[in-house]
């Protein structure tokens, strides 16, 4: 019973981190049809900036979080103009994979050059270090915070995409880019904004998840497979699909590691293959699939 509760809390927290990072990938993949393997590198960049801001500059946690997200978005926007624009919607997945792997390598090398190869931490404020009581049980405050942040992201994104002008234009551009452009929607700007949204979510997840996905230079390569798995299972472009997939995979992975630690990642990937074999387009058909 104790372990089931522990698995649920850790699994959901882990799933929420996966969701926050992956949904950014899902949104950009759904709109621009780019398999962006550098997404993990953007998450890592956010984490490193926050770590630097908190540890070396001494900013409080929330300020470091905001600075990290803002700086990551600012730093990556030129990439959209210079690089990503050339591979949007291209039928050639290969050049997308290569360009973004190349970008990942450059970021990994750059991070190592700037911050060194050691593990980086983002110190948590006192407010987040204790536990909160949940009925008869107590769960770590940080876990609760992460779960809350994930839920807030889910609601916020839903509101943004379903209820705002931006969301309406975005969905129009996804469904039929040529028609949207003909109707006067400035798709280039829309792409830029969406790219910024995706990167910002990556950075947010990188900062919030630093406790669960430790920050080191190979972060970008180590975890991108996880993020892609969430998007593939959830269906590209589907917010609720990403959330469901992230939670399911997070809980499966955590349960596997708790209950059968000898098998490590085996269950995660076995589940992935079974799911994708049965639903090749993911649980929820996204807007493009």
């Amino acid at each position, binding site marked *: 019973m104790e372990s089931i509760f522990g698995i649920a809390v850790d699994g959901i927290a882990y799933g929420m981190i996966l969701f926050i990072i992956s949904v950014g990938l899902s949104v950009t*993949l759904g709109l621009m049809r780019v*398999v962006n393997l550098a997404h993990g590198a953007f998450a890592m960049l956010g984490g490193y900036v926050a770590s630097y801001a908190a540890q070396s500059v001494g900013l409080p946690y929330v300020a470091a979080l905001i600075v990290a997200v803002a700086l990551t978005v600012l730093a990556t926007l030129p990439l959209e103009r210079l*690089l990503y624009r*050339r*591979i949007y*919607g*291209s*039928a*050639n*997945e*290969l*050049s997308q*994979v*290569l*360009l973004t*792997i*190349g*970008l*990942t*390598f*450059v*970021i*990994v*090398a*750059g991070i*190592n*050059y700037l911050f060194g*190869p050691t593990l980086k931490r983002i110190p948590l404020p006192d407010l987040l270090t204790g536990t909160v009581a949940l009925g008869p049980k107590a769960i770590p405050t940080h876990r609760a915070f992460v779960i809350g942040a994930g839920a807030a992201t889910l609601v916020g994104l839903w509101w943004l995409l379903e209820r705002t002008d931006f969301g309406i234009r975005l969905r129009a551009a996804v469904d039929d880019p040529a028609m949207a452009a003909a109707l006067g929607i400035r798709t280039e700007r829309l792409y830029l904004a969406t790219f910024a949204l995706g990167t910002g979510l990556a950075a947010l997840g990188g900062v919030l998840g630093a406790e669960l996905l430790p920050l080191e*230079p190979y972060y970008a*390569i180590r975890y991108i*497979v996880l993020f*892609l*798995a969430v*998007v*593939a299972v959830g269906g*590209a472009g589907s917010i609720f699909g990403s959330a469901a997939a992230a939670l399911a995979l997070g809980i499966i992975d955590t349960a596997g590691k708790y209950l059968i630690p*000898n*098998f*490590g*990642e*085996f269950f995660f*990937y*076995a589940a*992935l*293959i079974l799911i*994708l*074999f049965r639903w*090749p*387009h*993911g649980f929820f058909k996204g807007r*493009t*699939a």
Partner: protein
Amino acid sequence: MTSVAERDGKAAAVTRPLPPGRRRDLGWIGIPLVAAAGLAAYWLLPDDLALLTRIAASALFVLSLDLVLGYGGIATLGQAAMFGTGAYAAGIVAVNWNNDPFVMLAAGGLAGGLVALVTGALILHARGLTLLMLTIAVGQIVQEVANKARDWTGGSDGLSGIDPAPVLGLFRFDMFGHTAYLFALAVLVIGLLVARRIVRSPFGLACRGVKEDPLRISAIGGSPKSYLVALYAVAGVFAGVAGALTAVTSGIVGLDSAGFPWSAEALVMLVLGGTGRLYGAVIGTAAFMGIHHVLAASDPFHWMGFIGLFLIGIVLFLPGGIASGVERLGGLLGRKEGGA
């Protein structure tokens, strides 16, 4: 669903490359050149035989990826699954039953082909991102199984104690690596010849057809998926033999031989050299591993940054890889000589 098919169809129509026949084809000279360059390297660089051996075995692996990607259009990040399986199969056979190098290669090829056949039949109905994910997942599972089957594979310590018998009973594997290198080079050249035969066969042409336009292939009565599965299995044999070749020549097999980074590296090497040309795989491997050898001595991260920039540059400026650059140069020179 329909809109995706339509869009993909349109996009493919726009980006379709020139038909292979019209491209300046340097293929006929490629294999003798590889053999000659390999032998020249044997005399010119006698101190780097270990590196050269690794290059030859890796080139065979990259060649298998070229078959899948360059001729079948299957973008995969899990080719190392077959390489690792072949390497482990060869190692296990050598340690437990028979250490003849050819038996080891056969075991590796068989194992790699089987894994490719089974997983290919399972995953090749998917396209795009889903397929990429599935190939990655297969690779991770193979690696995880190799890690857990400690009694057979040595787990994370790797499988060691592989001691191959002399080639044909005559040539002993010496500690300087002379035999190992010549053996690896011979296997690579034979592999290139076989691969050339395959891609020029009706089967190879049908696979190309599937890559260019699967709809048309099914319209004239072929089954795109079975062609792709067969091609995947054939490439699996090549990858398995390449894995077995590293087991024979290095005497050890490690977990990283099945890992995701090794698949990604092979992809990088292939693209560096140029897809869809058999000798492109060899050029790419030699260039990548040669530069790596020189640069990585200082700091592995600098090397990563360098290769990353290089990749970005290739995608933006030289989509066909080094081989296409060579061909373009060849085309320019040819035009000058012709005076046209």
